[in-house]
């Protein structure tokens, strides 16, 4: 299966582990992501909070480039924020704003290609079968909380998600590794996203509540498929522990890291070695069949 690929800026920097593990999984299951040549930043929240036009036009240029380079090929977008912006732009290009968008980006755009997330790409029956077949080191005994965050699911009129309060696609993929997914209340709560920069005091409680609920429901780790959520949940866990006098010890893994480790990838190879919150020990113990503390 081939996809046109919009990596987004995070994959080249703070989300580098996502890029590494994704490449490993794709090789193992025979899926190919072909990067859109000369793609630009989708603008993220800064784009759409500046103006409706900017929020639509930045991702629309990427749609137009993909259409030009690989007409009709579905576009896979691993970052939740980029995914949301690309879906918004797709709807705008398909509707009454088409002419305006083409004028703003200086090239034609039709909105003919489908936008899919990593979860959607890997949930395809052929890909899911290949994942199942590639699991070499099952993660039986591991209990994780699948964290979807905001933008894969909401707003449903853009994402097309039927069950936006309790999505299941990530849970189903995680279960292929042998790990169990806990039932918890915060799988689609907001992590605070970029507000951890400009409104840190107001945003910390969001992370605290996510950790607290994950732990209360028996999770040993949190799984995400978004580089922004990863940065907040992983990098800021120490600061939240300090601010709240807590001792949360919840390694955070990209969905693709968990898949890659279960497929036999080395920790350095798939990114697990470079997290802020130590993430190797939990999986190492599990793989060595030692008892997980």
């Amino acid at each position, binding site marked *: 299966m081939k996809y046109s690929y919009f990596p987004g800026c995070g994959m*080249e920097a703070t989300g580098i582990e996502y890029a590494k593990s994704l490449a490993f999984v794709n090789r193992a299951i025979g899926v190919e992501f072909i990067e859109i040549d000369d793609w630009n930043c989708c603008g993220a929240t800064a*784009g759409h909070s500046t103006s409706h*036009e900017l929020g639509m036009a930045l991702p629309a240029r990427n749609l137009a480039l993909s259409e030009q380079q690989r007409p009709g090929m579905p576009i896979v977008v691993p970052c939740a924020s980029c995914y949301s912006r690309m879906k918004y732009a797709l709807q705008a290009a398909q509707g009454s704003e088409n002419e305006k968008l083409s004028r703003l980006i*200086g090239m034609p755009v039709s909105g003919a290609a489908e936008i899919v997330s990593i979860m959607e790409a890997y949930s395809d029956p052929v890909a899911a079968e290949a994942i199942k077949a590639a699991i070499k080191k099952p993660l039986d005994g591991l209990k994780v909380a699948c964290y979807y965050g905001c933008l894969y699911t909401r707003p449903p009129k853009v994402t097309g998600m039927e069950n936006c309060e309790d999505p299941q696609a990530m849970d189903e993929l995680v279960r292929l590794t042998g790990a169990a997914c806990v039932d918890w209340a915060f799988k689609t709560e907001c992590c605070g996203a970029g507000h951890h920069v400009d409104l840190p005091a107001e945003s910390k409680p969001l992370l605290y509540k996510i950790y607290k609920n994950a732990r209360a429901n028996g999770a040993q780790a949190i799984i995400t498929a978004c580089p922004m959520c990863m940065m907040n949940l992983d990098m800021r866990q120490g600061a939240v522990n300090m601010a709240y006098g807590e001792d949360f010890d919840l390694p955070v893994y990209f969905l693709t890291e968990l898949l890659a480790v279960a497929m036999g990838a080395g920790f350095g190879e798939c990114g697990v070695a470079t997290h802020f919150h130590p993430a190797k020990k939990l999986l190492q113990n599990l793989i060595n069949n030692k008892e997980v503390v």
Partner: protein
Amino acid sequence: MAEKNLSSLSAANAVRIEALADSIGAKLHECYQCGKCTAGCPMAGSMDLMPRQVIRHLQLGLLDEALHSRAPWICATCYTCSARCPHDVPISELMEAVRQQAERAGIRPIRRSHLFTKYFLLPLKWFGKNHELTLTMFYNLASGRVLQHFSYLPAMLKGSKLKIFPARVKNREAVRRLMENCEREAERI
């Protein structure tokens, strides 16, 4: 709160508020103030006006109060409110439209949020891509929080999570022109 003559205020602001709501396809009269948006809002605890109240102010014609509220700037655009509204009011999008109008009028109740957006877009205009180091340097200096995030730097560099030199698109001219076109278009409205 001081007394307001709502009927005269409404008349004066009705056109501006209607234009604001129309620009995102929102029907303000659909909101019956049930408060479900506020109940589910993860940031409500820090807001001066609850999401429900922002809409109520707009319904009553109290545009200036809405424009000066911190709430639209605190909104994390997580869309929980929009997804749960029983009458399909796009609350998150309304918050954003209020924030944009305030920004255009030079009203910035939370200067740091204004700075974050401004400096996020700066490297984008230069390079066509986001560059965390440029954003952080400019934001930290302008916001006065010079050392914010500094402690994460060693781990960032060790894990190759920070690019010293920005990634750049080849056709930077196209992205710059796109952004200027959008600025012009937004000014016309």
